[in-house]
């Protein structure tokens, strides 16, 4: 059973039209991450939540926002998508208990901007 679920799997939006991507987890993990992965590139961290504490990467554009209303859910909001924001967006979770730093990834949401 999938433990990190992202919706929608595919999202098409118009230039400048806001979009929200969602991520839910059944692992009860403390940490949730949002990565952006462009074609043939490594995932790039946008931000992450450690419980309710929000941690933004220094080079993440203001156009990207996130919400975590509870442990299970995390949202990525793109306020005014540009053509350069077309990418796969990956959600991942991590439990801080134990010695491992393993991240569990969702299948991703592919965003197309027209």
């Amino acid at each position, binding site marked *: 059973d999938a433990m990190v679920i992202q919706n929608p799997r595919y999202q098409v939006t118009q230039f400048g039209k806001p979009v929200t991507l969602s991520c839910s987890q059944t692992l009860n993990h*403390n*940490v949730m*991450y949002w990565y952006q992965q462009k074609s*043939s*590139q*490594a*995932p*790039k*961290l946008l931000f*992450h939540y*450690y419980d309710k504490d929000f*941690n933004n*990467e220094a080079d993440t554009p203001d156009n990207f926002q996130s919400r975590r209303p509870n442990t299970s859910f995390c949202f990525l909001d793109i306020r005014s998508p540009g053509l350069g924001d077309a990418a796969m967006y*990956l959600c*991942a979770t*991590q*439990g*801080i208990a134990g*010695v*491992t*730093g*393993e*991240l569990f*990834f*969702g*299948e*991703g949401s592919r965003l197309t901007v027209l």
Partner: protein
Amino acid sequence: AQRVTQPEKLLSVFKGAPVELKCNYSYSGSPELFWYVQYSRQRLQLLLRHISRESIKGFTADLNKGETSFHLKKPFAQEEDSAMYYCALIKAAGNKLTFGGGTRVLVKP
């Protein structure tokens, strides 16, 4: 800041041949190192981690702190090993996972 380098973008080998994916990192502390794999149309998933010292699907990786390397090896590649492989580093749980640029492995029959 930590950095992970994978010098090879693409590795093409024949089935049954050995394969080695190089990974070098820069970090002044003692990080935790991973190899993640992404098969076609599947989610990114953990292959192995250095603290486990295990062999997964025939792959092993040894952390060499002197050379700051964490190369991934398999003595006999199989066609199902064709995938994208990412070396990754994390300082501690709750911190970000930093990925290398990735190496695409193509195993030819």
